[in-house]
Every structure is written in structure tokens, then in C-alpha cells.
């Protein structure tokens, strides 16, 4: 059923593409059905399991500890240790439900967001392909299967971010996101192979039960590589900047990929490998450091952004930092807090992104400076936004509050046990909590609650400039458009009151992370504890910061540009391009002869170095037969015509004597009975000679001065070196020593007919035994045709350099991220101080 669900999603994507959804009013509902079906199926499959777990909670722990609900295996490439194996357990269920549940809401929403967009079908196709990859990622029970789907999410997210491919911002964002996540993917595959080789299995469920992985000598390498993969995917410092850049994606993609699912893939990986790798101080400090920095950095920078999506993006970065920090710890409370945090975040951040999209769609802007008073024009949307934002702020009794309480409590518990790490994390989380409140309030107040210009102009009616700048609702959202975030928010609002039924679900997920049964329970009310006090203090501090936010924004705006990750990345990228240009100029900028010299010497030098190890005796030929009369004549012919080629004055003469060289070599092949080689060589000779004659007769006569002595000498030297290269290579290959060694030619001769079904051994080698080589050769040929096409068809102009788009300065970027042009945004000071 797991594989069937993934196939269902892929097929639905193709169907949605095929029906041209932008012309069908019901397409949104149709699109929501497959993910919804997957959600329902997962719930129905998991219910008996969870009930059973609840029943036996006191005694048997197997169901809670490492119990799988469903296991599926499919044979794939056994020789590589690849198999498609899926396994649904508590953690996979949690992620699977988030992916398919939020996916259903986003699928419905997309149809209304991309109203009348002709490429809606394409978007659905990419979105569903992404959804399938994501489901595969969290259900996979094999490291390599997981990796295949991991890369699938990278590629599909690239397509989704770059959906508006005519916008340079979207292309740049997509490229940056892809380079970072795919680069992390490369590190990850290395880490996974190390992990698989060291533990002796690629099956994840076996790896996590294998003890002693942290004592391996290679553990630090595995850890660093896996963390690189997870941190790049989950936008942890210092890779956090790609996530705000990826906000150029259409809002449904941002809501889905960049808050609910893809960025959680790194978190998922950390959680999945938590039982195997976490029992080491390196794990603790690595996750604590990077998670903590990410958490604070995201929380503080979120406040300064005017674009709703940018603000939410940094808030997401911060939340991802929180989850990473929590995963540093091994306590039951910490892993439970991770589970609650993931669920709560999906249920408030997803809707907030969707709301930002609705606002954008309805008013044409997401700029907080231009938005105000949406509570009057978009009442339902405002209600959704308020519930979600309050949850984000961690205000009781919403789900966000439960998440924050679990977070602070687990960290406080670690701190109370005298752990320094616990105190650090607790302090950082409290500070970040205050900023959570600040940006949530900012978002609520500036976009939705503060009195809008409509109210002002009703009374004064003179502030014309403000009215122009003020965005108004000109396109009321359809009901299903709002229904999608509403459904998610409703779930998030009910959840805290339904913690009892949810309990086994949460604890079984937590048990999958910790690898041991979890007896903690999430609760809405913990009583009057120091944690509650901290929470209240954080809220108070957050409100104070909110009131002083213009000061905060001014301070943050003064930070130097060069510290921004995106700028540093762009500079690095430009540096690489520059290096490429320098290399190209060094190796390809001169005449044809010098390029050929570089290529030939590059072949000659390594062989010359290697041949030094060969004793002269080794070069003795196997059979010492003196050349007969025909061979002698051929040799003489070859040498003479080669000499003539060099010395002859006219180009036509050179071509003809070159042809003679080629034909003499062909005759050698004939003498030594290699008909295939002879045929090939002959055809090549004929074609080149005819072609060269064709070209050279029409070219102007060469009027250049004779070649300089120095260059002539160089050419002679290179030619001699190349000749020596060929000579010694052949001598070595036919030497008695090498012939007596085990040779593969015997194998080819014996197996051509029985195994290759062909009596032409040369051809059987080409297309069967060495087919992979031939594949490479014809690929090179095709590439050469591309190069030739470019050379022969290009008009003689200088091609533009490969310099790409430079990142805009922060303010310019936030302006351009908006979907529509902003007409003269009001200066920040006035609006901020007005409220």
C-alpha cells in the first residue's frame, strides 16, 4: 500500500496535468482527493496499531519501541544493495500525515491561487511529483532508497521554486536552493555509504538498533557528512539563507515545501538516525550550536522584513533551529517536544503562508507597509491568520503554546540535571520565544488589525498619497481558497483539547525517534512551574519588543550587507566562474597548434612518468619476427608521406600526403587481419580527405609569415613526444611480459559466441562486453556535435560572459519579491509611528 500510495500520487499528478486544470472549476477538489485518500488510508492503517499500543502500554513495549505498522519490500538492483523497502512506523506516520494532510489543503488551494494560469497543470505535476518523493523519503527503510527520494525532493523543489521562470529572482532563488541542497545531498550520500559500510547494512531499522555506532573510528566523518546533508536541507546556519531566497516560489509551494515538508526532511533524517548516532557529545554540541544559532538568527531577523513571506521564511528558519536544538538532547521530553513541535508548526505555519498568498492574491501585495485593516475586507482570512499567528506566538491555549511549553520544559529538565548544554539551550529558547511573540504580533497588527486607510480617508479624506500606496482588496477570495488554511488552523486549534486521544500517536512517534518507549505525555497545562513563568516573561518581553519594533528594524537594517549568506554565496560563485575563465584563457586562448600541444602533452606526461618504472627488459617484444617485404614498404610509405605532409608547401599537397599516411596505416590493419579497424580507418580517411579538400580549396591562400623558429621547435618537440608516447605504449602492450600476464583478450575470444551471440569479436566487445564504454563514446560524439554546431553556426561575436545575476541589496530584493510592482511604498517611519 505504501508503494501504491506513492504511485497514486504520481499518476494523479500526470492526470492533473493532462486535464488542463486551469479550465476546470472542480480541478482543485479533484486535486485534493488523492492526498486526502492517502491521509485517510494512513489513519485507518495506523488506528489498530495505535489502539494496540495503548492497550499494552503498561506491559509490552515492543509496539511502542520499534514497532512497524507496515513493512513493504521490492526487489530492485540487488547487485548494488538497492531495494525499494518501505516501513511505516510512528515517526514515518507523523511525517506521512503532515505531508499528505497539508498536501491535500495545498492541492485545493493551488487551483485558486493559480487561477487561470495556463501552467497550472505543470505546477500540479511538479507538486505531486514532489509529494511522492517526500512520502517516499519518510517511508523509506533503506538508506539508498531514502537518498533517491531525497534527491527527488531537491529536483522537484527546484522546478517549483523556478516556476515563474521568466523572473530572474525566481531563477536565482531556485538555483541557489538547488546548489545548496544538492551539495548537501552529495555529502549525505557519502555519509550514508560510510554508515552503511560500517554498520554492515543499509536497512535503517536495523541500523538504529545496532549498538556501538558512536564508538566507530569513522563516527566523526559519518556525523559531519550526515549533518551537512541535514543542515543544508533544513536551512540551518550557515546555509539558512537559501530558504528566504526560495520564497520566489508561488505561495502554495512555499507553504508546502518551505514550511511543512521539505525543510523538515533534514529534521526527519536527524530524528530517524537519532537512536543510532545521538549518544555522543559531538552530536550534542554540533546540533546545539548550529540549531541554537539558527533559532536566534531566524527569530531576530524575521522582524525586520516587510514582505510577509520573507518574515514567515525567517520564522520558519528559526523554528527549524528549535527542532534541531531539541534533537541534540536524548531525553524523553525532548523527543516528545520535537514531535509536538513538528505537528504544531505544520498546523500554524502552513496556514500562515496560505493566508499570505490569499492576501497577495486579493490585494496584489504582501508588503506590510502597504497592508492594513484587512480585518474589514477579509474577515475570515483575518480570523484564520489570527488563530495561526497566536499559535505561532505560543499563546495559550493554542497548539503552539503546547509546543513551546514542551520545548521549554524539556530543556529546563536537562538544565536542572546540571547540564551546561541544557542551560544554554533553555536560555536561547527563551530569547527566541520572545522574538516569536514579536514577529507574530507584528504580522497580525500590521497586516490585519491596525486601522486601514479606508477608515482614515473616511474621516479626513485628504491623505491622497497614503491612499495611493494603500493596497485594497480588489479580488475577493473564493470560499474554497480560504477553506484550505481554515481546515488546517481548525485542526491546530482543536488539537490541544484532544491531546488525550492523540497521546499514543505522539508517543509512538517520539518512541521512534528515541528508539525506546516514551512515557512522557504532552499536556496543555503543566501547573505553575518555573517554565510557565519563563514563558510568561518571554511573552511580556515579546510584547515590549513589538512596541519598539521600529527601533529594532532600524538597528537590524544597519547590519553590513557583506554578512548576508546570499551575498557571500554569490561572491563565491562569481569567483568560481572567474576561475573557469582564467583556466579557459590559459589552456584554450591560443592557436590551434598550442591547444593540440597541451592536449598531447597531457597524455604524454603521465605515461612517461609511469613508463619510468618499467625496466628496459620488460619492453622486449613477445615474438621477434622481422618485418617482411610488404611491411617494410608500408613503413617506408608511411614515413615518407608523413615527412612530405610536414614539408610540402601547398595545403592540397599536405592533405593528399596525409591521406597516404592514413591509407598506409589501413593497409597495416589489412595485413594483420583486422578488417573492422581497416574499414573504419579507411572510411574516416576518405571522409576527412574529401572534406579537407572541399574546405581548403575554398579557403584563402595562407598569407601569414612563416612560422617562428621557436614555435617550430616546440611543435617538433611535441610531435616527437607524442610519437614516443605511442611507440612505447605499443611496445609495452605487446611485450613478452605483458603478454605472459593474464590477458583479457582470451576471455573475449572464448566468450564472444556463447555469451555475446556474435562471431565478430570486435563488434561484440563494442556493443556488448564494453557497451558502457561505447555509450560514453557516443555521448562524447554527441557533445562534440553540439560544440561543432555552436562553432560553425555562431555568428562571430563575443559571447556574453557567464556572470549571473548579482543579488540585490536587501531593500531592493524585498521590493522585487513582491508579485506586483509596488508604486512608491511610503517611507517606513511614518506608518510605523502612526500606530
Amino acid at each position, binding site marked *: 500500500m505504501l508503494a501504491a500510495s506513492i504511485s497514486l500520487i504520481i499518476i494523479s499528478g500526470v492526470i492533473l496535468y493532462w486535464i488542463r486544470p486551469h479550465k476546470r472549476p472542480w480541478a482543485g477538489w479533484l486535486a485534493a482527493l488523492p492526498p486526502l485518500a492517502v491521509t485517510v488510508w494512513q489513519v485507518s492503517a495506523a488506528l489498530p496499531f495505535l489502539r494496540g499500543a495503548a492497550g499494552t502500554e503498561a506491559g509490552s513495549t515492543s509496539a511502542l519501541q520499534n514497532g512497524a505498522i507496515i513493512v513493504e519490500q521490492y526487489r530492485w*538492483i540487488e*547487485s548494488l544493495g538497492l531495494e525499494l523497502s518501505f516501513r511505516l512506523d510512528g515517526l514515518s506516520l507523523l511525517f506521512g500525515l503532515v505531508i499528505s494532510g497539508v498536501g491535500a489543503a495545498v492541492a485545493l488551494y493551488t487551483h485558486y491561487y493559480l487561477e487561470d494560469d495556463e501552467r497550472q497543470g505543470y505546477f500540479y505535476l511538479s507538486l505531486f511529483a514532489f509529494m511522492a518523493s517526500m512520502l517516499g523519503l519518510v517511508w523509506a527503510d533503506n538508506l539508498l532508497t531514502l537518498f533517491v527520494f531525497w534527491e527527488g525532493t531537491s529536483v522537484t523543489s527546484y522546478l517549483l521554486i523556478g516556476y515563474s521562470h521568466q523572473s530572474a529572482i525566481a531563477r536565482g532563488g531556485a538555483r541557489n536552493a538547488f546548489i545548496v541542497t544538492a551539495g548537501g545531498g552529495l555529502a549525505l550520500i557519502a555519509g550514508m555509504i560510510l554508515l552503511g559500510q560500517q554498520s554492515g547494512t543499509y536497512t535503517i531499522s536495523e541500523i538504529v538498533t545496532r549498538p556501538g555506532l558512536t564508538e566507530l573510528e569513522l563516527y566523526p566523518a559519518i556525523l559531519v557528512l550526515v549533518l551537512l546533508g541535514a543542515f543544508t536541507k533544513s536551512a540551518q546556519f550557515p546555509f539558512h539563507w537559501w530558504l528566504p531566497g526560495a520564497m520566489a516560489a508561488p505561495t502554495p509551494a512555499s507553504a508546502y515545501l518551505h514550511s511543512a515538508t521539505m525543510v523538515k526532511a533534514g529534521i526527519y533524517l536527524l530524528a530517524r538516525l537519532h537512536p543510532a548516532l545521538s549518544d555522543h557529545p559531538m552530536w550534542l554540541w554540533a546540533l546545539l550550536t548550529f540549531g541554537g544559532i539558527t533559532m536566534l538568527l531566524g527569530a531576530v531577523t524575521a522582524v525586520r522584513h516587510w514582505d510577509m513571506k520573507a518574515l514567515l521564511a525567517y520564522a520558519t528558519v528559526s523554528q527549524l533551529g528549535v527542532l534541531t536544538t531539541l534533537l541534540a538532547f536524548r531525553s524523553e521530553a525532548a523527543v516528545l517536544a520535537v514531535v509536538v513541535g513538528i505537528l504544531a508548526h505544520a498546523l500554524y505555519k502552513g496556514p500562515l503562508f496560505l493566508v499570505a498568498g490569499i492576501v497577495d492574491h486579493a490585494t496584489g501585495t504582501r508588503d506590510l507597509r502597504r497592508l492594513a485593516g484587512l480585518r474589514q475586507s477579509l474577515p475570515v482570512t483575518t480570523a484564520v491568520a489570527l488563530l495561526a499567528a497566536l499559535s505561532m506566538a505560543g499563546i495559550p491555549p493554542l497548539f503552539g503554546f503546547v509546543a513551546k511549553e514542551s520545548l521549554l520544559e524539556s530543556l529546563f529538565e536537562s538544565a536542572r540535571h546540571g547540564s551546561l548544554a541544557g542551560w544554554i539551550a533553555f536560555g536561547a529558547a527563551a530569547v527566541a520565544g520572545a522574538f516569536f511573540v514579536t514577529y507574530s504580533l507584528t504580522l497580525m497588527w500590521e497586516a490585519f488589525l491596525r486601522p486601514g486607510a479606508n477608515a482614515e480617508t473616511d474621516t479626513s479624506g485628504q491623505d491622497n498619497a497614503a491612499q495611493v500606496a494603500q493596497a485594497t482588496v480588489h479580488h475577493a477570495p473564493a470560499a474554497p481558497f480560504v477553506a484550505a488554511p481554515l481546515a488546517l488552523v481548525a485542526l491546530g486549534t482543536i488539537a490541544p483539547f484532544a491531546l488525550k486521544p492523540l497521546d499514543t500517536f505522539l508517543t509512538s512517534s517520539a518512541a521512534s525517534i528515541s528508539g525506546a518507549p516514551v512515557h512522557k505525555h504532552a499536556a496543555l497545562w503543566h501547573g505553575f512551574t518555573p517554565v510557565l513563568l519563563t514563558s510568561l516573561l518571554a511573552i511580556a518581553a515579546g510584547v515590549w519588543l513589538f512596541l519598539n519594533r521600529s527601533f529594532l528594524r532600524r538597528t537590524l537594517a544597519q547590519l553590513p550587507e557583506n554578512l548576508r549568506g546570499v551575498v557571500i554565496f554569490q561572491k563565491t560563485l562569481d569567483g568560481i566562474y572567474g576561475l573557469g575563465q582564467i583556466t579557459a584563457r590559459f589552456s584554450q586562448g591560443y592557436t590551434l597548434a598550442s591547444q593540440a600541444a597541451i592536449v598531447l602533452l597531457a597524455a604524454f606526461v603521465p605515461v612517461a612518468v609511469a613508463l619510468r618504472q618499467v625496466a628496459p627488459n620488460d619492453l622486449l617484444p613477445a615474438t621477434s619476427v622481422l618485418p617482411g617485404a610488404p611491411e617494410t614498404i608500408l613503413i617506408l610509405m608511411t614515413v615518407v608521406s608523413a615527412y612530405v605532409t610536414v614539408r610540402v608547401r601547398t595545403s592540397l599537397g599536405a592533405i593528399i600526403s596525409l591521406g597516404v599516411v592514413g591509407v598506409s596505416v589501413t593497409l597495416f590493419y589489412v595485413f594483420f587481419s583486422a*578488417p*573492422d579497424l581497416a*574499414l*573504419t580507418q579507411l*572510411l*574516416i580517411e*576518405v*571522409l576527412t580527405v*574529401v*572534406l579537407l579538400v*572541399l*574546405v*581548403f580549396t*575554398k*579557403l*584563402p591562400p595562407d598569407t601569414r609569415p612563416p612560422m617562428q623558429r621557436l614555435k617550430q621547435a616546440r611543435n617538433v618537440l611535441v610531435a616527437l613526444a607524442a610519437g614516443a608516447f605511442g611507440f612505447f605504449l605499443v611496445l609495452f602492450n605487446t611485450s613478452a611480459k605483458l603478454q605472459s600476464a593474464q590477458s583479457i583478450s582470451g576471455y573475449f575470444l572464448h566468450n564472444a559466441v556463447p*555469451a*555475446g*551471440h*556474435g*562471431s*565478430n569479436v*570486435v*563488434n*561484440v566487445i*563494442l*556493443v*556488448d562486453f564494453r*557497451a*558502457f564504454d*561505447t*555509450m560514453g563514446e*557516443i*555521448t562524447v*560524439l*554527441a557533445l*562534440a*556535435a553540439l560544440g*561543432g*554546431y555552436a*562553432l*560553425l*553556426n555562431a555568428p562571430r561575436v563575443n559571447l556574453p560572459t557567464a556572470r549571473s545575476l548579482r543579488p540585490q541589496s536587501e531593500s531592493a530584493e524585498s521590493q522585487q519579491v513582491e508579485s506586483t510592482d509596488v508604486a512608491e511604498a511610503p517611507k517606513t517611519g511614518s506608518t510605523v509611528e502612526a500606530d
Partner: protein
Amino acid sequence: MPELYLRLLNRILTPVLLLLAFYLLFRGHNLPGGGFIAGLMAAAAFQLQILSRGHVRVRRTIGPYLNSSIGLGLAVAICAGIVGLMEGTFFKGVWLSLDLPLLGYLKLGTPVIFDLGVFLVVVSVATSYLLGLSRASDTSARLREGSASPVRSDIHTTDRPELNVDPTRRADS
């Protein structure tokens, strides 16, 4: 216009060369021949065409298919490898024996399909080079004569725009 004997040779030899190419392609697994050689042979046929009819006309006939058949050849070759993947490993040879009523016993295998892909790539790459180079030499020859503009000759059709049209006719229409 090229010499008469070339045009006559072209008439006779091109079909022969192409048939020979296919012959070499399909017998290649057991006797000298194969995708590379057959591809070069077919390219020789096109070279003869270029020599006798001029590259513009040849390009008009086969030009549009050249680039796509490079890709097609690669795709065919990869597909042959993927068939092997289904049976075990990439590029594992899979053979099918057919007993056809008229043609007799026929053995068809993925290596033969792979060879077909090689043939397609070789013939298209070689021909596109032949066409490109003959155009380049043509353009430079014209540049040298100073009679023609350096624009690509094949964009404009061979029939030149009528330069000596009576100006009054144009005014009438």
C-alpha cells in the same frame, strides 16, 4: 553546378552506399561491420550528396532531422541498456530468438539495438559536421570573392530575391 559525372555518380551510388550501410550494420555482429562503420558509410553517402547537389539542398532534405536523431540514437542506446537492467544489470545482453517463416531464423538482442543507436549517433554527428564545414567553407569563399554578404547562405533560399524587378510593378501592386 557540379560536373555531370558527379551528378550521375550520385544518382547511382547514394542508394548503393545507403544499402551497404544498412547491410554492414546488421551483419556487424558476426562479420566485419557494425554501428560505427555503417554510420561512417552512410555519412559518406551524404557527403556525395553534398558534393553533387550542394549543402543547401541536402540540408533542406535531412537537416531538420539531424540534431534530433543524435538524441534519438542516444535514447535508443540507453534503452537497450535499460532492457538489460530489467533482467539484472545495466547493459546485460538480452537475446530473443525468432523463427520467422520467410526470413528464417532471426536472433534479435539488445546489443543489436544498441548498435542501431551507435549508428544513428555516428551518422548524424558526422553528417552535421560535413554540412557545417561545407557551409563554412562556402561562406568564406564568398567572402573572399566579395560578392556576397557574410550572412548564412541557407537562411535565404537559393533563388535570390529578384533585384531587377521593374519598380513600376511594385508601385502598381
